[in-house]
């Protein structure tokens, strides 16, 4: 039978949906999975001074940098690969651009201010080798681009380790599948229409792996009549236009999240690029049109988790 465990983490509504006959065992699995999500949140929070991430950022400018543990090293390696494979679009050092871009205000910063911040952006300026990371003065990194997706995958693994083989982990719309429904049928993950928040415009059958979505219509801004997504190109310091939301299904939520982020950053070409990846995906452009839909089905789904 299906048990649901709603909770809140990483500034998002979250939920575990786990199948199991032994209620106590399922509850224990859920407790351990939620603890794992909270552990990752604490470890990589930008807002906690005692986090590993803060220790790295505080070390910016120090010649020896800081040594990191295996898990962090693995994530930094992953970030390096994503940076290389995206031609520099996926960049965990781009967060400082938020100092000049305030999307809520709708105001566009001075070009000169953007240029100044850009001098502190660029993973190629970070020295990451032999287990030590050295940030140039003024630089910062954050794991906002993949921390939640990684946590979803880890939580799903913890559920597995506790004997749960059917269920899913949903961290604010980033979904990692523990396993298909007990009868073997896939979960049907709905993709919400960015223009009509309560309606799914399509759904994706997902038995394994993960689903992640980048972009959100609420975070679009209009500059000089053109709609921009709330996502910044680390190479120009400027928002990207073209796509409002991208959802991707991949063997892991982490991969899905990275692919959807890179597709967003590629703007108009993002849908074609995703097509080349061969992953089921759905792109919605800033005018609300579906631009690329691969491996998607329309219609009613069972066990729907609708997120966009």
């Amino acid at each position: 039978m299906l048990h649901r465990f709603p909770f809140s983490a990483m500034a998002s509504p979250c939920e575990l949906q786990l199948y199991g006959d032994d209620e106590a065992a399922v509850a224990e699995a859920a407790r351990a999975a939620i603890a794992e999500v909270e552990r990752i949140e604490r470890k990589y929070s930008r807002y906690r001074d005692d986090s590993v991430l803060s220790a790295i950022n505080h070390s910016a400018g120090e010649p020896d940098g800081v040594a990191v543990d295996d898990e962090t090293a693995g994530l930094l390696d992953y970030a390096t690969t994503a940076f290389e494979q995206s031609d520099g679009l996926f960049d965990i050092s781009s967060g400082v651009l938020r100092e000049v871009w305030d999307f809520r205000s709708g105001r566009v910063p001075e070009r000169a201010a953007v240029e100044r911040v850009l001098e502190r952006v660029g993973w190629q300026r970070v020295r990451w080798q032999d287990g030590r990371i050295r940030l140039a003065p003024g630089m910062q990194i954050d794991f906002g681009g993949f921390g939640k997706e990684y946590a979803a995958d880890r939580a799903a693994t913890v559920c597995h380790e506790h004997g749960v083989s059917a269920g899913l982990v949903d961290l604010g719309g980033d979904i990692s599948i523990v396993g298909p429904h007990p009868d073997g049928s896939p979960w049907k993950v709905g993709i919400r229409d960015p223009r009509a928040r309560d309606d799914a415009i399509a759904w994706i059958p997902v038995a394994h792996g993960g689903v992640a979505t980048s972009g959100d219509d609420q975070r679009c801004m209009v500059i000089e009549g053109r709609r921009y997504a709330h996502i910044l190109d680390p190479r120009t310091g400027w928002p990207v236009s073209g796509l409002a939301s991208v959802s991707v299904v991949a063997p892991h939520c982490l991969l899905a999240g990275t692919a959807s982020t890179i597709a967003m950053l590629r703007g108009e070409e993002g849908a074609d690029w995703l097509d080349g990846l061969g992953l089921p995906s759905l792109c919605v452009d800033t005018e609300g049109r579906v631009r690329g839909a691969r491996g998607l089905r329309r219609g009613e789904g069972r066990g729907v988790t609708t997120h966009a």
Partner: protein
Amino acid sequence: MKHPKDTKRAEGALGALTASAMALPGLAPAALADGPVEETSWDNEYSYYREDGLRPSKGVPGADNDRMEIHSYQFRVATPVGERSDLTVNGTYESLSGASPWFVLPDPVDGTPIQVMSGSTIDEKRGDMLATGAYYFDQGSINASGGFSIETDYYSGNIGLGAERSFNDKNTTLSIGASASFDWIRPTDCNEFDRICSEDKQSVNAFAGISQILTRHSAIQSTLGFGYSDGFLSDPYKRAYIDSIGSTIRDSRPDDRKQFTWTTKYRHHVSGFNGTAHIDYKLYVDDWGINSHTLDLAWYQSIPWQVQIVPSFRYYSQSQADFYEVLYQTPRNDGNASSDFRLSPYGAITYGLKLTKDVEDWPGHLDWQFALSYERYESDSGLAFQSVDVENPGLVSFRIFAARISVKF
């Protein structure tokens, strides 16, 4: 509007990101890889095996030189059973026809060995079935199997047990296993052709292996195997020529055999090319005096449209059995005699090409895989490591075409 270059780059990106994600400690894949199969799959393969005809200079002048051909259908069904176990059933049905080497005679003119074939008398069916059940723990698995094989003149049954245990965050896996088989041999026309009419043999095999993930792009596996056979190990359909008596006698081999193997397999993923190199080496030694080396090279290249191309190459070289001779001057004191080309010194090369195409979610919302392959095998005494004085005239070359359809439910 598609940019082929972008498509290619994107596929490479997925490979690189996947490899990088796999390297993260404790991310799902390692934990899942060792589990039971998660969906029912059904593989079907048809293959056509055809041996080259005996070269005219190697056979009896004017005789039919055709050799064997085999049409073979194989299937494999794997299905999860409950949450922690799975069941796999493999089966084969094949039809064999043609001729096989019978004995070697000296050419009446110059004394060189010439191969006498059985004549195209073989027309047989063979069926086999093997069922394996496995149960998975968090850190390992155990499996048990049982199977049989039936031909007109040959019946065989086998059982096996195995276990796997992983360590070191599943980066290291130890495997052990043992099996036993019981074979009954009932040659056809045993009275007409001076053959044994009923014999049997028993074999036991055991192996222990270790596999180690070396880096995020490479892994190695090394396995030691031991086999022991006891009983009738000769070939009832072959004979050996003894010059001093001017006639042939039954093929006769020792009644036990110990075999050792050491196999090492290395896999290396090259993300820049989106391909994986497979490099395998096998050393084989037995107490009949045969030792052999096999080097297998294959490159698994992924290209767009979910197509994979696999060119492969294999080199093989073996030394002869101590008691083997292509032609005997006098009978051996121990009574052994065999001129079987499979006990002779020779080398062989195999080259092959396989194409696979994945089609997901079609038709019937199922995942399909289609494969076509071709393999060419050529053996020759000149390919052996060591120099060979007299080549066995029965050495075989063949080709195999195969087509496979697999579906996951």
